[in-house]
């Protein structure tokens, strides 16, 4: 009825008119993202000023970089009083920052080990690669030990033989029961490592084939080589041990649980430095008189102990986040404890913990710099050593920037990989 009174109705759509200039394009973006209110505008101005100040301070210094010089004095002469970075120190001393005092003619060995590290890691990191590559990953630690420290290849081979002996003992002893079998296997393997492996390696090297590289002592290792060795070993060892410790903390057996809790809380309660001190000063008290073993090995053990406690807590977080029903479903399927952990619980718990796990690894890698306090030559110790030489006395920023950049590269790569992994393993449908 009312429609009859409408005299005119538009039949076709109007053409779209362009939005006002202030509501479109760059201007709108600037208004929305930079000057959205007084606070935002103030922050933008402050940020721009801060960036400008930084550029003014660092810009000329970077622009006048000197790459070719033999000493800081030479650099200063070239610059003639102008501010400028003296990157010549990196050009001059980069082998030292990376390898420490490793003999220059053998640089190829750690480099090869480093390249092979990625080959060994690849099957672990990317599931699309053939599974046979995992055998190389298993062989990698022994190979790297041989490449970096030199000596006879028989030593790592005999260490691996310990695993074979363990497997054999397990075959034989398994029918005696799980507990007894485990005790026999572990005992036999440890005895082999402690008393027979070294002798066997020595005998084989002497009578069969030397297979030896020029040996390099631990004292000569340093720089990022040392950081990577400690970091990678610590990471690789602390993950499985941390899983065991986390399971120990979740255990229904009061003794196992108590021991795990005390260990975790103790290690997490003290700084890494005190543990490193224990490694360098106290271990001699705790071991039988006359034993002395490599400082780097001691440090690796302590770093692993330290990281294990942290990893255990991270994984406990993952386990706690898992719904109770998952445990019950695994039990309902008739899986025993270890199979339930391996097939149902751990894959999910580890997936949940990936981000924190990787940031713990990054923390561990960064904490390898603390070995400077017990006299090992990590990059920071070497930067001090370089500064103490007459040529480069008084040079700070270039060294710090270089060291920081290399650490940044490694850590950033790790965190990006964890993001990739999270995306790939995402199975929920959100």
């Amino acid at each position, binding site marked *: 009825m009312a429609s009859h009174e409408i005299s005119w109705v538009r039949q076709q759509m109007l053409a779209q008119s362009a939005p006002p200039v202030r509501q479109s394009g760059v201007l709108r973006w600037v208004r*929305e*993202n*930079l000057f*959205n209110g007084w606070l*935002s505008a103030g*922050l*933008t101005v402050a*940020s*721009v000023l*801060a*960036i400008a100040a930084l550029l003014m301070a660092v810009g000329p210094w970077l622009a006048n970089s000197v790459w070719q010089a033999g000493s800081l004095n030479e650099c200063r002469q070239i610059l003639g009083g102008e501010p400028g970075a003296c990157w010549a120190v990196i050009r001059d001393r980069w082998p030292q920052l990376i390898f420490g005092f490793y003999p220059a003619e053998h640089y190829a060995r750690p480099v090869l080990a480093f390249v092979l590290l990625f080959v060994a890691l690849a099957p672990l990191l990317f599931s699309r690669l053939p599974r046979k590559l995992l055998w190389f990953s298993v062989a990698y630690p022994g190979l790297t030990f041989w490449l970096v420290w030199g000596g006879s290849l028989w030593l790592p081979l005999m260490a691996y033989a310990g695993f074979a002996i363990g497997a054999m003992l397990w075959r034989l002893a398994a029918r005696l*029961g*799980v*507990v*007894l079998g485990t*005790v026999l296997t572990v005992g036999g393997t440890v005895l082999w490592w402690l008393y027979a492996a070294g002798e066997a390696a020595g005998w084989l090297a002497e009578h069969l084939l030397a297979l030896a590289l020029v040996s390099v002592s631990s004292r000569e290792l340093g720089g990022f080589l040392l950081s990577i060795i400690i970091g990678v070993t610590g990471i690789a060892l602390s993950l499985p041990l941390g899983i065991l410790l986390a399971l120990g903390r979740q255990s*229904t*057996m*009061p*003794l*196992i649980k108590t*021991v795990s809790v005390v260990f975790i*809380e*103790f290690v*997490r*309660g*003290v*700084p*890494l*430095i*005190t543990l490193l*001190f*224990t490694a360098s*000063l*106290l271990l*001699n*008290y*705790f*071991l*039988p*008189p006359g034993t002395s073993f490599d400082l780097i090995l001691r440090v690796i053990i302590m770093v692993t102990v330290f990281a294990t406690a942290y990893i255990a807590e991270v994984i406990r977080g993952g386990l706690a986040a898992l719904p109770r029903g998952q445990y019950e479903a695994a039990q309902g399927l008739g899986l025993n404890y270890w199979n339930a952990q391996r097939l149902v619980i751990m894959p999910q718990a580890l997936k949940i913990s990936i981000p924190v796990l990787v*940031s713990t690894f*990054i923390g561990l890698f*960064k*904490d390898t*710099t*603390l070995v*400077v*306090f017990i006299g090992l030559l990590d990059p*920071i110790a070497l930067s001090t050593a370089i500064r103490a030489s007459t040529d480069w006395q008084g040079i*700070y*920023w270039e060294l*710090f920037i270089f*060291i*920081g950049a290399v*650490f*940044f590269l490694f*850590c*950033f790569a790790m*965190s990006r990989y964890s993001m990739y992994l999270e995306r790939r393993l995402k199975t929920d449908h959100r």
Partner: protein
Amino acid sequence: MSTLTISGGNARANSFALSMLLHDTRYRSYTIQIIALMGLMLVAAWLVDNTVRNLATLGKDFSFAYLWTPAGYDINQRPIDYDSQMSHGRAALVGFLNTLVLAILSCVTATIIGVLAGVLRLSNNWIVARLMTVYIETFRNIPALLCILVIGAVMAQSMPAPSSYRDAGALALVATNRGIYIPEPLFSQDWGSLNLGVVQPSLNAIALLLLLVLCFLAHRALVRHAGRVQRLTGIRPKTWWKSLLVLTVPPALLLAAMGFHLGYPQLRGFNFQGGIQLGNALIAMWIGLSVYTGAFIAEIVRSGIQSIAKGQAEAANALGLRPGRTMRLVVLPQALRVIIPPLTSQYLDITKHTSLGLAVGYMDLRSTLGGISINQTGRELEGILLMMLIYLAMSLLISGLMSLYNNRVKLQVR
């Protein structure tokens, strides 16, 4: 013999066979635990035996008596009286206090930096968000030690020498390459000091502290009263000016009575006299740790805020709350529950990272008790054990306090 046959004949199903220790899940856990306990005790006995034998070989004993012998070394930053004639124990106490001061300062500033950076990284402002991302990613990916060393180098290399303030007279804040000087509080009426044996706190400071606590309690009572009135009548009485009066007037009166004034640092000879010197080492550690940990806290704050469902903020908007109130009353209280546990571990990390002090010459617990004292007396075992125990106690205390706080903000589940 006879009992055996009887029990065996009675009920074979209930009888206990030795093999059940291994195969019956009811008993297996006991077996495992007993074996583990024996192994543990064996290892412990082995370690203790080795230690005793090693100590005997070295002709050392295990005693903490060295803590009462003169230390003979100086400490550059002293919160309490100390000179080189005092004991190793006293030096350790000074170091402990230095650790504590540094940890508390760094926790506070790192939290401020972290919350700011975390919130700003989420802001709509493009440039600020990018800047914060750069800051956070940089410091999360470089070692703490490097960060501290860089700040230490900045302090030592690019600050002016004290002599450049030659004609400046008394200054409120002086930054030199020997440290930063700030004014010190002085009282012209000295009321003496309380002798507690280990420390002698000045009575002026104690009186002021007590009064501040009383004023704060009075303020709390006022607010609580206002809340009661609001519940009964629906109208909240204005309290802000009463609170302001209660909080400021009595302390001001007391300060005036004690003759409070500031002592400004002044250049005398080659160095500044008066004022409080915050040594380079302290500044480097403080700024270094704050900036480093701030990046981590920023990420924690960001993830905490992002973990709150968008609907919460939208619901608050729908109720007509302004953005500031939405943040303060709705989002932050919920985000705190996510933030507190990881924040606790950051505070623990700061406390543990204070042990890096030696890198820039900060005399903390680790440099005194675990450093110079060990070098001078050769008592590694005692020194390191004691140091570990103190750090452990500090860590447990912090996590205990934070878990108390966590329980207060925790979601009350019915």
